[in-house]
């Protein structure tokens, strides 16, 4: 079985992946403008401040858009089809691309309430995903 492509943590993201391994879901919040952002970056995407801090996100989100993928774009996903690729609105504001799991893929709808869950893909990598709340 081919492994799915996995993240390669670096300076800006290692904190996020470390937390995920501990089944904690953290995002960045700006110490200047107060807005949250995802994905992790070195500066605030709203005001360009570098005063970013990590906060524990609630893990609550709403489906903004979704699609059920029947054709794997990478051999690693072949055994996972059909799977839900979604963009969710986190309760804290930012949008995040993710999978909606632990449900019938065709049952996922725009506006559905979802919550974070964790997929321990390897000993080193855990992927935060979402499931119906």
């Amino acid at each position, binding site marked *: 079985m081919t492994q799915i492509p996995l993240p390669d943590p670096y300076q800006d993201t290692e904190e996020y992946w470390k937390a995920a391994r501990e089944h904690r879901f953290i995002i960045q919040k700006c110490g200047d403008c107060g807005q949250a952002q995802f*994905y992790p970056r070195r500066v605030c995407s709203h005001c360009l401040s570098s005063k970013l801090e990590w906060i524990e996100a609630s893990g609550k989100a709403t489906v*903004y*858009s979704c*699609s*059920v*993928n*029947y*054709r794997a774009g990478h051999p690693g996903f072949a055994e996972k089809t059909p799977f839900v*690729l979604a*963009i969710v609105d986190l309760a804290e504001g930012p*949008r*995040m*691309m993710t999978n909606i799991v632990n449900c019938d893929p*065709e049952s996922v709808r725009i506006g559905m309430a979802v919550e974070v869950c964790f997929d321990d893909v390897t000993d080193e990598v855990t992927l935060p995903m979402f499931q119906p709340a």
Partner: protein
Amino acid sequence: MNPLARMRDRITIEDVLNSRMIASPLHLLDCCLVTDAGGAVVLTSMERAKDLKKRPIAVLGTGEAHTHRMISQMPDLTQTAAKISGKLAFERAGVTHADIDVAEIYDSFTITVLLTLESLGFCKKGEGGAFVSGQRTAPGGDFPMNTQGGALSYTHPGMFGIFTVIEAVRQLRGECGPRQVPNAEVAIANGTGGVLSSTGTIILGRE
């Protein structure tokens, strides 16, 4: 009607809906081809072009815009950067939507066309589906569009945008044979790149 098109058989709505699902709600026939191809345009001054063998076509106006790098960061999935690039092109060209005789709209997927037509202002948001319904974009329809077959039927080498410009020029030159739009004088071509990230709009006209 395009002898160079990869797919030339008639496709019905049922054919599309019966083709296998790729990523819902897009079926196989909602997705563009993957082919080899290449294209080019020659750009020169109108003064120089007047001496050439081919009928010169004028660039009336252009616009470019970019809204995001990653699809998850797209500000609004229902509107593309064509809203900005289209406005610029129309303003610079000094023409209105009613002046457009033929439209060549990048069609990576069927939804790309609807989003683009709405973003360019040919119809209101959410009305793209109705706008293209009833054979309006088919040969003889009152909104000639993607007359060479588009990326869905003609070709898509990964960079289809050039073919929207080439077909617009050919239509304005009157070189299109059976698929020629009668008396085409003004054409619009719109390319979309990245992941619905950036758009380029060009309005062309007969000199």
